[in-house]
């Protein structure tokens, strides 16, 4: 593995061959492996090791970046020169700030996210886990497909004004689809610590969903009460967090323009960005090395704050939007510079509901509704009302009189996130959830009234 010490030596070599006013090097890489299975066999099985550096140079308000995974002297000289060549030809940007001298104070300690047991997982270990999942499929006469992955990664930043930071992490992920003749079920879990993942439990739940959704009936599209399991919640709400950014407000591409401080969602909705949460993952600093702050984005349904990179905060203070966006401070959420998007909250944690309900309790209190395991192919239809479209997938059920009555054909939805988060009738306890459309989050299951299904597909 690339170590902090080795990266520091490489940064010294980078500095020596640069003529820029300021230099920053971001290091990335690690070892990763993924065992993929389908039709009850392992059909793809891969491993990778790769390390690189991305060098940013600054000449009087002009900045650019170049990256390489070749860390010999000649390649480092070339990458520095490429970065400098890109920077020198630009017009100076008066808004570009000097590089930070330190990352500032963090909101709190970040839990350990590197586990030797996860880093040591072998292809044989993953095959054994897959074998357990296949045995569940065979037992239920189902076909299974999915992944078991493990990784150990490093990420570090150094700049010529003295800032340096380093983060190591492990991760493991298991995703299981169970397929029957006319139905399917799905479960997924991931964690920095593989011991938190139970392939058997994930497989059994996916199998149960496939079996119970067999012979799906067709329900008419329309507005239905839905119970969204945590993975479905994260995949749909994830589309709005690009807009919780100061730069998005400045660019007038955010649905929060002219809405910060208003009651946008239901009073039961609270959302934080909190890298230190025990169920979260990721590095505790941003693309400039600034420590990520804990930010209360939504308080009782009112959007109170958005996040800021250093430069965005300065621009916002001088802008016409300054009086209507709440507190303006750098929050440690910037992307690597230079970039167009500014910043984004990436460690989303919903507020713990006052009276959490299990999914089973939500079902019991539902006269008629739809239970949704997973959403798929979500895209933005309308940016200001935040209407999103997408499909249900891998376990969609009719609920009647407080009980699951069986599977239904999958729906297409066209739903405004503003509308959805204003109609949350119940929430579950918080869970680390992982989907395919958005980044991992800590979210509850949600019961939502009047969710807008507009079409039904053929299965």
């Amino acid at each position, binding site marked *: 593995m690339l170590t902090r010490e080795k990266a520091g030596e490489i940064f010294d070599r980078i500095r020596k061959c640069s003529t820029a006013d300021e230099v920053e090097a971001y290091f990335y890489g690690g070892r*990763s*492996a993924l065992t*993929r*299975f*389908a*039709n009850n*066999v*392992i*059909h*793809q*099985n*891969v*491993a*990778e*090791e*790769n390390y690189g550096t991305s060098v940013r140079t600054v000449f009087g308000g002009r900045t650019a*970046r*170049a*990256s390489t*995974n*070749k860390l010999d002297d000649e390649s480092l000289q*070339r990458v520095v020169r490429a970065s400098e*060549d*890109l*920077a020198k*030809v*630009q017009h100076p*940007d008066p808004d570009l700030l000097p590089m930070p001298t330190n990352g500032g104070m963090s909101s709190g300690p970040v839990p350990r996210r590197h586990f030797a047991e996860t880093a040591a997982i*072998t*292809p*044989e270990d993953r095959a*054994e886990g*897959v074998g357990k999942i*296949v045995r569940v499929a065979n037992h239920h006469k189902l076909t299974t*497909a999915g*992944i078991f*992955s493990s990784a150990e990664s490093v990420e570090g930043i150094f700049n010529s004004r003295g800032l340096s930071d380093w983060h190591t992490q492990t991760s493991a992920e298991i995703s*299981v689809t169970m397929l029957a003749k006319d139905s399917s079920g*799905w479960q997924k879990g991931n964690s920095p610590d593989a011991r938190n993942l139970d392939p058997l439990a994930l497989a059994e739940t996916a199998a149960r969903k496939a079996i119970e959704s067999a012979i799906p009936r067709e329900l008419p599209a329309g*507005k239905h009460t839905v119970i969204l399991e945590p993975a479905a919640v994260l995949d749909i709400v994830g589309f709005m967090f690009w807009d919780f950014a100061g730069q998005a407000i400045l660019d*007038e591409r955010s649905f929060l323009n002219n809405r910060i401080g208003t009651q946008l969602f239901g009073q039961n909705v609270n959302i934080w960005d909190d890298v230190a949460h025990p169920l979260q993952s990721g590095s505790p600093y941003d693309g400039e090395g600034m420590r990520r702050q804990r930010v209360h984005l939504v308080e009782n349904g009112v959007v109170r704050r958005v996040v800021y990179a250093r430069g965005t905060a300065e621009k916002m203070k001088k802008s016409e939007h300054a009086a209507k966006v709440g507190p303006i401070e750098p929050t440690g959420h910037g992307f690597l510079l*230079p*970039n*167009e998007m500014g910043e984004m909250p990436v460690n989303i944690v919903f507020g713990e509901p006052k009276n959490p309900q299990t999914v089973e309790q939500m079902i019991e209190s539902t006269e008629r509704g739809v239970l949704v395991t997973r959403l798929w192919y979500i895209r933005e*239809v*309308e*940016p*200001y*009302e935040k*209407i999103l479209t*997408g*499909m249900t*997938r*891998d376990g969609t059920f009719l609920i009647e009189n407080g009980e699951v009555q069986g599977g239904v054909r999958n729906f297409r939805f*066209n*739903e405004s996130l503003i509308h959805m988060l204003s109609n949350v009738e119940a929430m579950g306890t918080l869970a680390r959830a992982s989907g395919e459309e958005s980044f991992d989050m800590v979210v509850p299951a949600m019961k939502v009234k009047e969710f807008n299904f*507009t*079409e039904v*597909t*053929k299965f």
Partner: protein
Amino acid sequence: MKDIADWALNVAAQRGASFADARIVDERSRSLATKNGKIGHASDAESLGIGIRVIADGAWGFAASDDLSQAAVETTAARAFAIAKASARVKQENVRLAPEKPVTAAWATPCQIDPFAISIEQNLDLLLKIDADLRSVAGVTLAETSMNFRREEQWYASSEAARIHQTKYSAGAGYAAYVFAGTEIMKRSYPNSFGGQWQNKGYELIHELKLQENARRVAEEAVALHKAEQCPEGVFTIILDSSQLGLQIHESVGHPIELDRVLGMEANFAGTSFLTLDKLRTLRYGSDLVNVVADARQEHGPGLGTFGFDDEGVPAQCTPIITNGLFTGYLSSRETAHTIGADRSGGTLRAEGWNRLPMIRMTNISILPGEKPLTLEQLIADTDHGIYLETNKSWSIDDKRYNFQFGCEIGWEIKKGKRARMLKNPSYSGITTEFWNSMDAICSRDQWTLWGTPNCGKGQPQQVMGTGHGAAPARFRGIKVGSAYRGN
């Protein structure tokens, strides 16, 4: 590079692998962007490494490394072998590869102007001029431009003695104008949305796109959309511009014909396909006018799916996918060819980079133009009442590729053969085979464009790939319009 590949193949052979291949890939890319008169980003990137595939005990293993020293390459090959042995613990049948005559060959993208030889100043100057033109239109609140270039040099070697050297160039450029007013954000893009137009070409593509010439028109349309009426909901005749039809092909033809999807290999992520094997040469996919090919050959054009050989050494081919409306072909690989009774791969296996396993990917999936001369304006003149939709804004389709919904940036009502009022937020939806069977006209070759989709995601770990889609404007009858906005 030959020595490096041989180090890998020798270790695989010594350990007892029945097959091995190695790809050494050296990539270079440049990405430039502006936003509201400033540099958005300016970056170069390079990446070099080796990816090694091995079959041992009848199962696959793959390992990749950025370290090309002999010791590291041999360790990586040994790792691939060990992974294959682990794969064999959970298998039913041995992997079968369709035979392919090994060749020693070289191929390169025809590239008239090396994009990396063009000065950065010249590129930024063009983007900033376009940016200024966009913002010169009153009402524009955000202008974005971008330009991207990529060069990929690959050395492929297999235990069957194939030795192939390929160099591919690609270029892409485009821009968008946004207008925020009241409670709406409107957007217009050129030449296409989500990054513009992309092809396997050199800098000559930038000259051909007439970028600056169209900037003010595009910005003016973004402003005008705020005064346009909402696209009505109902069942209409629609005409799609060629870029939107290209994406329609990508989603509702290109993905469902991927044989790995059909066989369930993508069931956990990208999904499966309604095109089960019994549908080959029996399913009426579209109307008689629908003819689609998967063509990776240079003579098809400079698409993002054009190459000399795929990433397991199979030469580029043209496969008829839909022939006069009948479903006639899948995208296949050496491993999957036997499942459709083919004695040879269709040559579609590609990887995002050296560190990714090659998998079945779209090449250039193109609808062939109509044989009789027909321009877009003539097609509109031939349409009594309908809606013309241009430039994609949103796209979504279910995991078997039946139900789709697309939104476009702009539409126009067609009344008595003429473009009438502008419409905002046009969208349409349907079921794949019903949609293609409703096509009753397609414009001719002079209206046909080979579009590039640079961002096709598939696989675990996910790989992003460029695909090509040739299309001409076409007309469809009885299409559901506007349900994306129903109930909101």
